[in-house]
């Protein structure tokens, strides 16, 4: 449990706003160490990690965890060093007023999102959310200095450290989708080649939050050409505003999705593996779009059989996304079992 928390904290600290994924390569190399054989960064900023089982002709299993996170981009530097910004992916705008941010210009610049003083809130607009392109970030610099330090196009992320709540729950930014990356890393660490039934290609894909064309995972899969794939993302945790059947229960284990796009037989097998090993999981029924890369992968190249799994997360796209470390560890245990299970491929043509 503690190792999972440590990995999640480390990953959350890497700034990977969509389009900036490649800035984390060195940090990832250090963190992943010998858990994988190789790590490369491709043209789009996908990180491709390979861990081989050592047997010639072994099938390739791809695990996709998108590594980009939502954030903002600087669109202008104004009077008194106030910055205007635009959304990258869907940052929840409700949390912006008075939020603290890091502006990644030529150096990291601290900022506060300006909130309207109460006496200036007009009666007619008081109950309307201020659109993001009218919000300003206060850097405390003069305009000239801010222009020097912050080029247009600089990414902006939230300044939050990870906080630990009760019941092994953690809250922080970027847990969508680093919570699953932490689970994968947790699974791969200490897993030896001889135990593995597949060569594993772990793709930390780019642009999931922003590309309607799923450009990142498309290019990643083209290079990997896997036999089958697991897509890991996050799902809404049940709670206020998320009543069943929506969402999954925090602490109830990872979600495993049944949907028209994903491979039904393979998915059933994954559930059977979990059940027989006492790993808790929750069934997610998704009749239409999963909203994840599992919509894209099955249709790439000549078709890639895909299983979609998720971790429960509350506060999606805020600076206080919250997950349960117990769920992360359960997912990690399940992944290990799957990576070592050579019978999965029997399900492909069922």
């Amino acid at each position, binding site marked *: 449990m503690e190792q999972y928390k440590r990995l999640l904290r480390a990953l959350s600290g890497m700034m990977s706003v969509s389009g900036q994924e490649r800035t984390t390569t060195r940090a990832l190399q250090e963190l992943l160490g010998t858990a994988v054989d190789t790590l490369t960064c491709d043209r789009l900023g996908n990180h491709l990690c390979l861990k081989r089982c050592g047997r010639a002709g072994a099938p390739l299993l791809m695990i996709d965890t998108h590594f980009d996170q939502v954030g903002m981009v600087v669109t202008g530097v104004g009077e008194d060093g106030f910055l205007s910004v635009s959304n990258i992916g869907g940052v929840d705008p409700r949390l912006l007023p008075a*939020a*603290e941010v890091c502006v990644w210009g030529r150096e990291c610049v601290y900022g506060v999102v300006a909130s309207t003083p109460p*006496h200036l809130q007009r009666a007619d607009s008081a109950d309307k959310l*201020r659109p993001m392109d009218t919000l300003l970030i206060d850097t405390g610099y003069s305009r000239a200095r801010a222009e020097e330090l912050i080029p247009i196009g600089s990414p902006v992320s939230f300044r939050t450290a990870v906080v630990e709540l009760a019941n092994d729950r953690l809250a922080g930014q970027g847990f969508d989708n680093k919570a699953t990356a932490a689970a994968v890393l947790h699974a791969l660490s200490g897993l030896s080649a001889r135990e593995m039934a597949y060569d594993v290609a772990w793709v930390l894909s780019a642009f999931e939050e922003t590309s309607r064309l799923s450009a990142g995972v498309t290019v990643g899969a083209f290079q990997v050409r896997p036999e089958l794939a697991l897509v890991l993302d996050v799902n809404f945790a049940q*709670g*206020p505003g998320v009543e069943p059947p929506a969402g999954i229960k925090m602490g109830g284990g990872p979600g495993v999705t049944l949907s028209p796009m994903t491979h039904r037989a393979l998915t059933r097998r994954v559930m059977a593996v979990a059940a027989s090993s006492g790993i808790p999981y929750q069934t997610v029924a998704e009749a239409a779009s999963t909203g994840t890369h599992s919509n894209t992968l099955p249709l790439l190249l000549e078709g890639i059989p895909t299983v979609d799994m998720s971790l429960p997360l509350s*506060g999606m796209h805020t600076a206080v996304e919250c997950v349960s470390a117990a769920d992360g560890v359960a997912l990690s245990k399940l992944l290990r079992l799957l990576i070592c299970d050579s019978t999965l491929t029997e399900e492909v043509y069922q």
Partner: protein
Amino acid sequence: MNRDIELLRRLCLLFGPSGCEGEVRSAIRESIRPCVDELEQDKLGNLIGYVDGADNSRTLMIAAHMDEVGMMITNIESSGQLRFDTVGGIDAAVLCGKRVVVWGHDRTRLPGIISAKPIHLQSKEEREKATTRKSLYIDIGASDRADAQRLVSVGDFAVFDSDFVRFGEAERRMKGKAIDDRLGCAVMISVLERLRAEGTVPPVRLAFAFTVREEVGFSGAKTAAYRINPSHAVALESTAIADLPDVSAHERVGDMGRGGVLSLADKGALYCRAFVGYALSVGREKDIPVQLKRYVSGGNDARHIQQSAAGVRVLALSAPTRYLHSASCVADLADYRAMQKLVYEMIVGFGRYLAKEDM
């Protein structure tokens, strides 16, 4: 040199929502004990430090409130989430997505987060609406009601979890929670320390009142003033400065970096013109930045003090602050220091002012 910044930092980090000022009071008591001639805590919890003057028949009161805005748990849901109400005026827009500290059973500090219904699941109409407080919850990670009840109770307090950060040009901007009104308290402590260090005997008796419950309108300053019975009072506060680029010049309250803001009038009081004039003249003579408030808004303890007993001549001096009553209040170091200097010099010259005072 940066002792005053360290002082402000320490004060801002303390837990002190209205009605629960104990931790702040203890810390302030320790700081001012060596600098005052007499120290008392009254029935409401106000802390008052007296400094004898050349003429003890008159008293000048200087006041700042110890309490900050915060939250109170009003209900524990079956899911383990905590419903809350705000203590003092916090705009719902600045609550969402912030971190808090809940003071639970046995005085344990519990980290929590304020969350709302996921944006993806909102309808289009919902998305365009500003957040309402009713849609927000504090999540401390409890798995259900019973689990939460082991940790907290209805009625427990919470405050924003926000550290103290210096940033911007020459790091002169300071961000923290509770700058309103720990900055006022810090100004008073700095002045007390300077009076003692320089061996200055004030012309009249001074009463430094660190008051309670200002943010909820049940002002401790009222009863403190009644007890102290001053002729004049200076209320130290924070004001929402509104000096943002999209605010037109006449709607701005003042400017950051141009010194403490003196009010001529606000929603609660019309200030004593002569006294305000004195403050301005001290600013001019001693070359200390001070500005006049441009916009009529807000209110503070001064109005309660003014109407105490037979009346008190009051003045309000406020620190220009951005994002007031949020987790990220921002003030300026130059303003903080200008206020320290101005209050000190006003004390030193007060005798001469009294001699010339007219209505």
